[in-house]
């Protein structure tokens, strides 16, 4: 139990997928203009990464390892994740239309989100079993949501600031996220 919590905290804060591993930067910069859309994206990512960690680790443990073809993990994982997102989209559209509406375009966007693949590959690299993989995925996704919501709220509050012309738009966002990454380095000694 204690180890599971450590895995979540480690994935969410210490090895934050965005701010210390620099994966999934496209949605981080692209979908962080408003806090509520950022939170929607975060929710979708939590959902998909947790599920994808589970499925990819099953594929790895039950198919790739027994056949001794673990070098195919990347391509197999991409295949599985893309199909999974498609399936989840169909399922939500049918059974939970309101959630489908709320997640909107973010759900298909996640197919190409490298954070999902990153989490799946980290599970393999750290040799987690299936349970630990799911929790690591959950922690990673929580870290993603945390970072994107924080950035979105910072962006909202600096929107009306008197930013020098050269820094308006993307540059100030990149500087902001750089400073956030430095701040997250403070978690390095936590575990």
């Amino acid at each position: 139990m204690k180890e599971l919590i450590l895995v979540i905290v480690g994935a969410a804060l210490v090895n934050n997928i965005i701010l210390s591993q620099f994966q999934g930067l496209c949605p981080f910069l692209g979908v962080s203009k408003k806090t509520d859309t950022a939170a929607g994206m975060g929710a979708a990512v939590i959902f998909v990464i947790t599920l994808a960690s589970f499925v990819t680790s099953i594929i790895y443990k039950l198919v790739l390892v027994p056949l001794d073809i673990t070098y195919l993990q990347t391509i197999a994982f991409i295949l599985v994740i893309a199909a999974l997102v498609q399936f989840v989209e169909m399922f939500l559209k049918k059974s939970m239309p309101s959630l489908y509406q709320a997640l909107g375009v973010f759900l298909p966007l996640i197919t190409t989100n490298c954070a999902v693949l990153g989490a799946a590959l980290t599970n393999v690299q750290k040799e987690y079993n299936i349970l630990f993989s799911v929790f690591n995925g959950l922690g990673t996704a929580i870290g993603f949501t945390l970072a994107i919501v924080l950035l979105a709220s910072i962006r909202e509050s600096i929107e009306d600031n008197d930013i020098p012309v050269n820094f308006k738009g993307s540059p100030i966002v990149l500087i902001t996220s750089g400073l956030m990454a430095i701040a997250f380095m403070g978690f390095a000694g936590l575990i």
Partner: protein
Amino acid sequence: MMGLLLAAGVIGAIGIIIGVLLGVASEKFKVEVDEREILVRAELPGNNCGGCGFPGCDGLANAIAAGTAPVSGCPVGGPVVAEKIAAIMGVESGGAVKKVAFVKCKGTCDKTRVQYNYFGMDDCRKVSVVPGGGEKACVYGCMGYGSCVKACEFDAIHVVDGVAVVDKEKCVACGKCVQACPNHLIELVPYDAKHLVQCSSHDKGKDVKAKCDAGCIGCTLCTKQCEFDAIHMDNNVAVIDYEKCTNCGKCAQKCPVKVIL
């Protein structure tokens, strides 16, 4: 060689299994979508400007297909799109009129007098709460700080000589500027309307004269000229009823201050 075949076989098998599963799932989780909704959505402009009051073109298409929005609901597409959608829905379009935004003020820098010098934030909504409503003497008129210009996504409205002017050809009547103007100066008028009152001042004639050379003084001459009962006084400013107006132009000829276009 064995490894090669094994790799191709495994990935191929995973692909085929996933393909079959997704195919089955897509049948199983099929959602009935109104076919007309897709057709309607295809006809809409796709700017997602929100001028119709729905969240984007998909929202409007959904509402039209459900029958809760009129077929002429898209102000951007105008009558052309309304006709096509009416054909899809199998109803009459009801003769939607193409509209454009129009700024009901002509108080340019040389016409309207200045009551003080204003140095501050250049945004109409902020200037409108300053005592006196900005540097121009008339509190009803265009302040010229361009909140409407910022609101326009189609580059159709610009501040010229201190007053916002709409480019009739570029305007799609989405209504964003109408909402942006704190003085409620902008109105959607028929594209064909030739005669428009370019003033919104509710001041008495004498006060208007003191503040602006281009203001309606409320003399009511135009209302007496109109043969079609299309122009009326509303609290000291002439207002044209575009449904009744026949563009005869008699009101414009008689206007002593030439405030009617």
